[in-house]
C-alpha cells in the first residue's frame, strides 16, 4: 500500500472514531433532552473537521459521516420547534461556540431549522449565513463548509411555488455568492505552496470539482429560474465569474457544469453568447471538449421529446460560424481537435437536420480545406487524425444507409486520400459492404465512377500499398471477392447505361494486375454476356432497332475483357471464351462465335501445358462445341473446329486420355437436332449425323488403346469404347455395325482370359432384359 494512502487511512480512522464517540454522547444527551450537553458533544465532533491533514476524498468520507450524525441534531431542533420552543434564541446561542468551524456548522444547522420555522425571512437568514461563512478561508474546510450550507438550505430557498419569504432573485444571489466564494477558494488551492507539489494540488482540485458543480445544479433546480431569468440574471453572472477567474481547471469544470445543469432549450436561446464566452477562455482550456459536450447535449435534446429546435434558429449555422471564429482566435489547436469538433458538428446536423445534406457537405468541405492547408498527406497522417477522418467518412455511411446519398456529397470523396493505406482499405471495404448491404443499385455512370474512386485502393496497388508478400492471402481473397460482388449492384435498367457502367468498371478493374483481375473480370464478362441477351430480347420485341450493332459492341468488349484475363489466367480465359462462344451462337453471330472458339483453341495450344489441365480443357472444348452444334456455325467452320478438337484429343499426353478423348470427340459428329423446349433458339440447330466419322474416331480410339502397356487398364479402355459403341448402336448409327461390336467383345474376352486375376470386376457380365434390342444384334 502506498504510504500516503496508509497514512490517510489511519488519520481518517482516528478522526472517524472520535466522531463516532462524540456522536454517541450527543445522541444520548439529545434523548435525555440535555441540549447543552448535546451541543457540546456536537461541537467536539465537528472539531474533527478542522483537520488540514486529510486529502479531499478522505475529508469527504469524514464529512459524510459527520453529516449523517448532524441529521440527529437537526431532527431534534425541528422537534423543539414543534413543541413551540424558540429557535431564534438558539441561533444566538451557538454563535458562542469557541471554534469557528464547529460554530459555523452549528449555525448553519440551526439556521436551516430557523428558516423552516418561518420566524424570520428566509432570505435574511440565508444572507447572514453566506456572509458568516467567509470566516473560514482554508480552501478545503471552506469548500466543505459552504457545501454543507448549500446542501442544508437547497430546499429552503425562496422560489416560485414555495412559501419561504424572499424573492427568487435573493435565492439566485445567495447561490451565486456562495458559488463565487467557493470558486475563489478552489482557485486559490492551486496556488498554495504548502500543499505539496503542483501536480498534487491539481489532483486535489480535480477531486473537489464536484462541490463547485453542485452550485450550478442548485440554480438549475430553481423553478423561478425561467429561461428569461436565466438569460438576464444567471448566465451573464456565471459567465463573468468563469471568464474572469482565468484558471484552466475552473473554466473547464464550470463550463461543463453549466452545460449539464440547465435545460437544452436555455442553451439554444443563448447559444451565440455561450460560444463567445468559450472563445474567451484561457488558451490552455480544452475548448474542443467543451464544444463537443455542448453539441452532444443539444443533439440529445433534439432527439428527445422535451422539445424541438426552433425553426427560425439555425443551430448548425451558429455553431459553424462560432467554431470558425474560435479556431481563428486559437492558433495552434491540434488538427485532430479541429476535426473532432467537426465530427460533433456532423453528428449534430445529422441528428437535428437529417434532410439538410448541404450542412454535411459543408462540414466535410471545411475538413477538406483544413487538411489541405495543414500539409498533412496519407504518408504523414497521425493515428489521431486518422481516427477523426475515418469518422467523417463512416458517419454518413451509417446514417444514410443509401450510398447514393453519400456519394452525392461533393466533398466526401476526396477525404479518403488523407488516410494511410491500411485505414483507406478498411474504409473502402466499409463502403463496398454498405453498397452490398443496402441493395441500392448504383445506376448512373457518375455514381459508379465515384464509388470506384472511393475504393481505388482495393482496385490497384497504389504507391503506398504494402508489399504483396506482406498481404495475407485469405484477407486479399476476401477483399477482392467483395469488389467482384459490387458489379452486381452497379446496374441500370437501361441497357445502354448498363453497358456504360461495365465500360467504366472495366477501366477501373483492368488496372488491378494479375492477382485482382481473376476475381473482378469474370463477373464483368458474365454480366456483359447477359447484357447481350437483354439487347436481343429488346430487338426481337421490336424495341431496339440498333440491337445487332449494340450486341456486336458488347461482344467486342467481352472479347477484350477475356483476352486481358486470359493472358494471366489461361484456364479461366478458355472457359470464358467458350461461354462467350455459346452466347454469340444463340445470337446467331457466326463469325463471333467462331472467333471465340478459335481463341479457346489458341489458349489451349499456347498456354495450357499441364497434362491434367489439357485433358480438362479439351473436355470443355468438345463439350462446348458439341452443345453449340451447328446453329450459327456453317458446315466448314464446324468441320474445322471439330477436326481440330479430334486431332488435339488424340495428342493428349497419356494413352488413356488419348483413347477417352478421341472417343469423346466422336460425339462432335453425331449431334442433336432442334430442341423444341429451348427458349433461346432463334436459329434452328442443324443436326450433324456423320456415322462414318464417328466410326473412324472409335477405331482410332481402339488403336490408341491397343498401345496401352498395362493390360488391366487396357481392358478397361476397351470396355469404355464398347460402351460408346453401344450408345451409337442405340441411337441408330448404322456405321457402327454388329460385326464391329462383336469383334470388340471378342477382343475384350480374349484379353480378359489372358489376365492373371480371373475375378476382375466386369462392367457387364451378360445381357439384361431391358436392352434386348442392342444385345440381340450382338451374337454373344
Amino acid at each position: 500500500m502506498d504510504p500516503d494512502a496508509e497514512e490517510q487511512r489511519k488519520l481518517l480512522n482516528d478522526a472517524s472514531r472520535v466522531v463516532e464517540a462524540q456522536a454517541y454522547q450527543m445522541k444520548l444527551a439529545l434523548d435525555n433532552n440535555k441540549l447543552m450537553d448535546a451541543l457540546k458533544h456536537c461541537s467536539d465532533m465537528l472539531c474533527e473537521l478542522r483537520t488540514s491533514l486529510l486529502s479531499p476524498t478522505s475529508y469527504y468520507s469524514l464529512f459524510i459521516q459527520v453529516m449523517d450524525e448532524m441529521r440527529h441534531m437537526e431532527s431534534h431542533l425541528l422537534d423543539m420547534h414543534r413543541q413551540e420552543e424558540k429557535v431564534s434564541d438558539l441561533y444566538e446561542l451557538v454563535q458562542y461556540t469557541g471554534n469557528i468551524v464547529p460554530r459555523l456548522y452549528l449555525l448553519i444547522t440551526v439556521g436551516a431549522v430557523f428558516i423552516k420555522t418561518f420566524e424570520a425571512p428566509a432570505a435574511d437568514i440565508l444572507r447572514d449565513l453566506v456572509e458568516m461563512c467567509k470566516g473560514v478561508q482554508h480552501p478545503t474546510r471552506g469548500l466543505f463548509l459552504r457545501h454543507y450550507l448549500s446542501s442544508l438550505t437547497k430546499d429552503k430557498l425562496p422560489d416560485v411555488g414555495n412559501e419561504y419569504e424572499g424573492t427568487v432573485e435573493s435565492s439566485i444571489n445567495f447561490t451565486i455568492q456562495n458559488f463565487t466564494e467557493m470558486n475563489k477558494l478552489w482557485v486559490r488551492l492551486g496556488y498554495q505552496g504548502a500543499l505539496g507539489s503542483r501536480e498534487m494540488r491539481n489532483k486535489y482540485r480535480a477531486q473537489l470539482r464536484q462541490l463547485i458543480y453542485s452550485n450550478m445544479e442548485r440554480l438549475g433546480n430553481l423553478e423561478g429560474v425561467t429561461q428569461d431569468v436565466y438569460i438576464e440574471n444567471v448566465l451573464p453572472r456565471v459567465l463573468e465569474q468563469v471568464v474572469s477567474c482565468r484558471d484552466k481547471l475552473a473554466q473547464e469544470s464550470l463550463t461543463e457544469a453549466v452545460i449539464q445543469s440547465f435545460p437544452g432549450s436555455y442553451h439554444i436561446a443563448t447559444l451565440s453568447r455561450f460560444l463567445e464566452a468559450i472563445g474567451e477562455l484561457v488558451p490552455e482550456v480544452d475548448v474542443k471538449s467543451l464544444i463537443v459536450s455542448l453539441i452532444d447535449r443539444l443533439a440529445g435534446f433534439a432527439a428527445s421529446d422535451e422539445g424541438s429546435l426552433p425553426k427560425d434558429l439555425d443551430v448548425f449555422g451558429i455553431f459553424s460560424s462560432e467554431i470558425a471564429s474560435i479556431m481563428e482566435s486559437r492558433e495552434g489547436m491540434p488538427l485532430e481537435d479541429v476535426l473532432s469538433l467537426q465530427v460533433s458538428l456532423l453528428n449534430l446536423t445529422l441528428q437535428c437536420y437529417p434532410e439538410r445534406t448541404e450542412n454535411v457537405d459543408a462540414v466535410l468541405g471545411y475538413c477538406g480545406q483544413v487538411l489541405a492547408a495543414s500539409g498533412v498527406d496519407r504518408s504523414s497522417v497521425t493515428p489521431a487524425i486518422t481516427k477523426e477522418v475515418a469518422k467523417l467518412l463512416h458517419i454518413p455511411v451509417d446514417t444514410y444507409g443509401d450510398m447514393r446519398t453519400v456519394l452525392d456529397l461533393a466533398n466526401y470523396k476526396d477525404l479518403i486520400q488523407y488516410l494511410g493505406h491500411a485505414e483507406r482499405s478498411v474504409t473502402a471495404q466499409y463502403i463496398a459492404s454498405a453498397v452490398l448491404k443496402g441493395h441500392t443499385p448504383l445506376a448512373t455512370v457518375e455514381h459508379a465512377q465515384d464509388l470506384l474512386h472511393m475504393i481505388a485502393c482495393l482496385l490497384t496497388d497504389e504507391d503506398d500499398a504494402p508489399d504483396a508478400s506482406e498481404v495475407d492471402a485469405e484477407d486479399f481473397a476476401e477483399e477482392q471477392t467483395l469488389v467482384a460482388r459490387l458489379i452486381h449492384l452497379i446496374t441500370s435498367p437501361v441497357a445502354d447505361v448498363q453497358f456504360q457502367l461495365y465500360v467504366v468498371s472495366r477501366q477501373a478493374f483492368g488496372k488491378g494486375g494479375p492477382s485482382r483481375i481473376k476475381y473482378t473480370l469474370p463477373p464483368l464478362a458474365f454480366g456483359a454476356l447477359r447484357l447481350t441477351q437483354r439487347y436481343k430480347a429488346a430487338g426481337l420485341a421490336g424495341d431496339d432497332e440498333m440491337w445487332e450493332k449494340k450486341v456486336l459492341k458488347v461482344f467486342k468488349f467481352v472479347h477484350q475483357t477475356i483476352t486481358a484475363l486470359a493472358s494471366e489466367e489461361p484456364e479461366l480465359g478458355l472457359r470464358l471464351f467458350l461461354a462467350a462462344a455459346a452466347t454469340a451462337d444463340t445470337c446467331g453471330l457466326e463469325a463471333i462465335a467462331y472467333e471465340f472458339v478459335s481463341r479457346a483453341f489458341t489458349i489451349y495450344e499456347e498456354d495450357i501445358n499441364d497434362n491434367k489441365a489439357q485433358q480438362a480443357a479439351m473436355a470443355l472444348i468438345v463439350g462446348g462445341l458439341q452443345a453449340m452444334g451447328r446453329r450459327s456455325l456453317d458446315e466448314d467452320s464446324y468441320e474445322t473446329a471439330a477436326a481440330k478438337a479430334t486431332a488435339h484429343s488424340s495428342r493428349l499426353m497419356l494413352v488413356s486420355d488419348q483413347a477417352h478423348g478421341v472417343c469423346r470427340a466422336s460425339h462432335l459428329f453425331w449431334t442433336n437436332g432442334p430442341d423444341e423446349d429451348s427458349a433461346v433458339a432463334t436459329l434452328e440447330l442443324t443436326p450433324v449425323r456423320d456415322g462414318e466419322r464417328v466410326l473412324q474416331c472409335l477405331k482410332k480410339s481402339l488403336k490408341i488403346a491397343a498401345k496401352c502397356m498395362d493390360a488391366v487398364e487396357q481392358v478397361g479402355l476397351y470396355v469404355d469404347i464398347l460402351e460408346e459403341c453401344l450408345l451409337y448402336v442405340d441411337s441408330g448409327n448404322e456405321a457402327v455395325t454388329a460385326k464391329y461390336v462383336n469383334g470388340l467383345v471378342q477382343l475384350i474376352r480374349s484379353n480378359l482370359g489372358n489376365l492373371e486375376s480371373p475375378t476382375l470386376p466386369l462392367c457387364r457380365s451378360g445381357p439384361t432384359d431391358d436392352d434386348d434390342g442392342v444385345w440381340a444384334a450382338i451374337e454373344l
Partner: protein
Amino acid sequence: MATRKKVLLKVIILGDSGVGKTSLMNQYVNSKFSSQYKATIGADFLTKEVMVEDRLVTMQIWDTAGQERFQSLGVAFYRGADCCVLVFDVNLPKTFENLDSWRDEFLIQAGPRDPDNFPFVVLGNKIDLEDQRRISTKRAMTWCTLKGNIPYFETSAKENVEVEQAFHTIAKNALKQENDVDLGFPPPSAIKLHDPPPKQKKGCC
C-alpha cells in the same frame, strides 16, 4: 438508544445515466416531473418525512450521478445506507444488464454488515413508453428472485405510476434494516474515552 423515538433513514438510488433516478426522487418528494433532462452532478439528497408502521420516519434519499466523471469525490455517501434502490429503463436493455454491476459496486463500497440480507429494491422505470419496451416483467422478476427476492416495481416517474408504493416498500425495508442495526451498543471508543477498561492498561505496559 435502542428505541430512539425518531427514525432517520438513508436510501441510495443507483442506476445508469438517464434512467430517471432524479425524476423518481422528485416525483416522490416534490410531486413534480419535468421532461427537461439535466445530468445529475455529484451526489445530492432530498428528505421526506413519512409514516411507516405508525412511526414517523425521515427519509434522506440520495440521488447519484449515473456518469462516473461527475463523482470526483468518490462514493463515501454509500456508507450507512439503510436501503439501496436500483433503477433501470425498461426500454433500454443495457441499463438492465448493468444492474449487476451497480449492486456489486454498492455492496463493495458501502460494506454493509450483512451483505446477503441487505435490502435492495429494483425499479423498472419509464413504463409509460409501453410500445418501446424491451425488458419484460418476467425477465426483471427472474433477476430479482435470483438475487434474493428483491422487491420489484414497474414505475413511471412521468405519469406517477407506482412511485408512492415503491418508496413505501423502500421505507419499510429500510426501517427493518435500521431496527436491526440500531439496537447497537455504544461504540468501543466511547467507552474508552470515559472509562478505560483496566485490561487495556495492562496490555500497554
